[in-house]
């Protein structure tokens, strides 16, 4: 796989890996800090266990969103990441992350609903950001289930891949809309800018990788 003309030395590779992982951890911690620094008003009216559950639910939600952004990066990969970690490792992370995202999303839904009463579902027009969240949850679950049990479900790989990709990008859009409108924490400019920057960075990353891939294909043909 490693056919780059500029090969990284082992030492440099470890430094790059360390930087990449540190950057990832920094982003995760920054995202999680939003639940504390830009506390939502819903937390004001939760006491004791209810408050702990709601806050933990919000943390799981933020974690799901961050992991979803990284999931797209892991799926698209790009040459630099492939060189650094290897395709097999990235694929393994992508699969594990997919399962983690589903679990985080489940925890988010359960813990956010529990303090208001598990049967007190936010259904209706005025709860549209929550409804977007439900749709996102279903997209995430269907992606995880169809990936884990693709063969048992008799899904043809090529078709599954196309649908998986479409669902993946849809999840990105749904996440952005859900996070931006469901929580009043994201009415503050810093969290809003952070989310916009994260999503934009992922989109730019995808576009760069895709464009490079296309150029490579054209070069090969000519």
């Amino acid at each position: 796989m490693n056919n780059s003309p500029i090969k990284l030395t082992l030492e440099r590779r470890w430094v790059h890996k360390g930087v990449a992982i540190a950057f990832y951890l920094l982003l995760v911690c920054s995202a999680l800090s939003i639940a504390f620094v830009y506390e939502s008003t819903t937390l004001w009216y939760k006491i004791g266990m209810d408050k702990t559950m709601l806050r933990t639910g919000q943390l799981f939600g933020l974690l799901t969103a961050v992991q979803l952004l990284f999931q797209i990066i892991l799926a698209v990969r790009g040459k630099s990441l492939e060189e650094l970690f290897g395709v097999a490792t990235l694929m393994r992370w992508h699969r594990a992350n997919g399962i983690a995202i589903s679990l985080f999303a489940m925890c988010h839904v359960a813990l956010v609903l529990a303090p208001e009463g598990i049967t007190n579902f936010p259904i209706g027009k005025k709860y549209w950001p929550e409804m977007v969240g439900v749709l996102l949850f279903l997209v995430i679950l269907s992606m995880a289930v169809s990936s884990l049990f693709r063969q048992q479900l008799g899904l043809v790989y090529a078709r599954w891949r196309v649908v998986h990709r479409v669902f993946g990008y849809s999840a990105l859009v749904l996440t952005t809309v859900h996070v931006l409108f469901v929580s009043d924490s994201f009415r503050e400019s810093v969290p809003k800018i952070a989310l916009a920057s994260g999503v934009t960075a992922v989109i730019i990353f995808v576009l760069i990788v895709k464009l490079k891939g296309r150029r490579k294909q054209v070069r090969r043909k000519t």
Partner: protein
Amino acid sequence: MKRLIYTIITIVLLFVGQTAQGAVRSWELDKAHSNFYFGIGHIFSVVQGHFTDYSGEIMFDPNNLEESHFFFEIKTSSIETNVAKRDKHLQSSDFFDEKNFPLMTFKSTKITDAGGGVYEVSGNFTVKGQSHELVLPLTFAGIKKHPAMKGKEVIGFNGKVTIDRLAYNVGNGKFFDMGGVGKDVDIFVTLEALSKK
């Protein structure tokens, strides 16, 4: 024979006359122009809201208060305070417990003329399955030909009452104790109802 016919006619006329006098006019709520508003203190400010889904029955005749009555049924899930998350919280067991108690009802038991166009409507206000006596002073705005609906008359009432939400078990007092949400709720009832002329 003639005598018998006159007697029957007299009896029938008397009976019809009495029924007409006894029948209290029924009024159909104009939901677009009626509402149950409320205001409750929050630290220093007042949060206002209303209920969007309700039904009611108004039988009113100022000359026959004994047979007049008011009945209202309000869906607790229809609470609207302009903040969706707050509405969901108000529907939860912390306040209305909408899943177990989907309705609030008010059923009048007695109407008295308090003078100055005010009618004191005494009745049972049932919230979260518990009934409490409540006197709702309604100012009778009058009856007039509806300016927009042909052949219909409109009746109007407005009234204000303050209740202690904790007496009605709407919340256990934890938000009141922490100084966040007040316990006195100002209710403003404004009604328009229609009836065929």
